């Protein structure tokens, strides 16, 4: 049963990871939209309806996660306020999470329950 109209925006440079997240969230009833890097994500946000939550990878090219956060903060208030969850394989994830206004941090490989928990919390 679909939970909400607003999709979850998945931003990751690995296509398999994007698919896995999409499939996982789909079987829980969420709609997802995919973006390959920060720039694609920005383009999506500026042109399409706002997503409920963004799952953001850290290392991407041409625009990385932190670069995306910097650009996002420059958007209008409602857009800048979209909750963003940092998803990264990097062990220093917790440190990195502090520099930007992430609402949560998930380490890869993802704990499924934790992921679903957070998405449920923020998608309203």
């Amino acid at each position, binding site marked *: 049963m679909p939970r909400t109209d607003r999709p979850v925006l998945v931003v990751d440079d690995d296509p398999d990871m994007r698919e896995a997240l999409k499939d996982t969230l789909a079987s829980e009833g969420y709609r997802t939209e995919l973006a390959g890097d920060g720039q694609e994500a920005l383009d999506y946000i500026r042109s399409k309806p706002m997503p409920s939550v963004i799952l953001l990878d850290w290392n991407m090219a041409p625009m990385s996660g932190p670069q995306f956060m910097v650009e996002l903060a420059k958007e209008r208030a409602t857009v800048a306020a979209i909750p963003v969850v940092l998803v990264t394989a990097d062990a220093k994830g917790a440190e990195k999470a502090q520099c930007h206004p992430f609402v949560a941090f998930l380490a*890869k490989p993802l704990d499924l329950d934790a992921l679903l928990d957070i998405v449920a919390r923020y998608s309203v």
Partner: protein
Amino acid sequence: MMTIDRKSLNIVATNAMVLALYVALAKSGSVLSATDTSAVLDGAPAGLAMAGILLLGYRIVPGLGLGALVVWASTRASTPVALVIAAGDTLEAVLGGWAMRRLVGFDGAFGRLRHVGGLIVPAAMMSTLVCATIGVASLTLGGFISAEQSWSAWQAWWVRDMLDVLVTVPVVVAWVSVRSLKCPASRALEATLLGCVLLGESATIFLRAPVPHAHLFQHPYVLFLVFIWAALRFDVRGAATATAVAFVFGLYSVAHGTGPFVRESLAEGLLALQTFIGCAAVTSLVVAGAMSDRARAIREAHDQARKLQVLAAASTSFAQAIHETGTILRELARLCTEVVGDSCVIQLASDDPAELTVAAFDSRNRAVGEAAETFLVGQHALRTGVTERVLTTLSDVLIPVVDAQAAPVVSSRAFAEFTRQCPVYSAVAVPLETATEVFGVVALLRHSARKPYTDNELTVLRDLADRAGLALYNAKLYDELRAAVVVRDEFLAIAGHELKTPLAALLMQIQSLQRVVRNDPSPTVRDRLAKAARSGLRMERLTNQLLDVSRIAGGKLTLEPERLELGELLREVAARFADASAAAHSPMAIKGETEVNGYWDRMRLDEVISNLLSNAMKYGQGKPVEIDLHTENGDAVLQVTDHGIGIDEAHQRKMFQKFERAVAVREFGGFGLGLWITRKIVEESGGRIVVQSTPGQGSVFTVRLPREHQHSTHGEPHAAN
């Protein structure tokens, strides 16, 4: 055009002086022979003439010849006879001088027994024989002495000249070459004592009236003891001086009718004295010569011993792990300079095949070394001449005397400038090679003309260069080894990272599917997915190990301790192994304290416990596994016991190393990194891990952790048996 230069004037002046001296001495010496008419002898100073030739060279021959001529012309001998005898006198001096220089290598000082031998036989005996024979023959043939007189005349002449040479030459030579009279007080004291004894004894012997019963100290042979003392302690100078002093006393005594050498005629008495002094002189000179030889041998032995010591030290210093090429080269230059001298320059081959670079320079002379270092080291030099020869033929080059026209050892302007200030008289160059390449050229330079390099010194240089070559090779290997390890660790990091991404996606799909079928009545899919998940998790663990290894090896293992209750963590990890435990039919039992609090890195300790449990499962052969947690002396102690295949002692020592497994590769999978990582984490936390095991009966792994730890202490894990 005749130019009168300084040198010619010098020679003329010297000859004039010699002439004057000769005549004066001859005339004063003739006082002795005037009283005896059985021989017409003039006191031609044979000894001084020979000493003159030895010290001043053949250039004084004209002066000597003229002097002899003047002396003999003023006697009643006829002119042709005078000419012949004068020639004989001159010949005597020349022959003696020649014999000393050419035959025994006399170089201005009586430093060897050989020199003494040369003085005694060829100089004192042979050349005087020539002169005496010529002289007496001429006089007899000229009718100035009768045939019956000629035998005793000849004898007297010969012995007189012989004594003159034996006594005068060493005394004059020894004292003329004295540089300074400085010596330690004890030595001065001894010399004074010797002098007093000599004078006293000479007086006692020679100045007494010729009574038939002499007491002990009036026997002339007592003087032998004094002469030997002088020879033993004061070398040729002492021996010659003592003999000369005694001779003077003796001459006086014979002339005045005192002492033990008074005979019926003056000539006989003189002969007796001369015989005595002659024997004494020979004895003491020989002893002195032998002592000189001995002292020289001892000095050389000391030098050799010192050189060997330095070479041994060189080996040691090169053998110690010096990894830096520059240091090795500087050390080599220093050693070469110290052991052989005078200066050492090392040139290295460069990328440009026609050029070399001056890599190091050292010199015994501080000032030379510092000056040259600044403008020589780092400069480029051409690869030609000596260096080309050494590098292409890989042979040693010895240049005992440097030819100004030939190519210099270092072909550069800077070096040419250097040689202008510090001329190079002798050089030797050897290749500097390692096992795989030719590094460059090591060359030694000598800045004085008196000591050309010898084969011995070439051998020493060759030896030092070989040792340096070994050290350079080791340094290179060490560098390559370090670089290889860095590359390996970097690769591990990259590999681990690359593997993580698809792994994350894979695990997510599996877990997601597990959620989808969780309510499915048929267990098939669920079971299969569970197995897939387990494989995936194992792969995740292995990948993490790869990343851990590269991190730890790179020194990047940083712990993030937090308040942690170990019992709870243990139960959590054990729960994760529940499936594996069931699958292996290896029940796990946790005992001990249920709550152990401390300050540790949760993720890392999780890894440690997982590793230990995973090992227990893997090698447990399906037997039960016991896990014990308790505290001891404030430390947390975790013990994991299995009853499986065990580990033999040889492996117990090595098992905590990287890539080491105690079992065959094919049997139980894994990288063999688990225990190494475990050990590193435990040690970094300030703890220790030990293993006790008996093959076939199982193993006990014991981890001891302090509750809190600030700095890491590194201990070696050991097998306790």
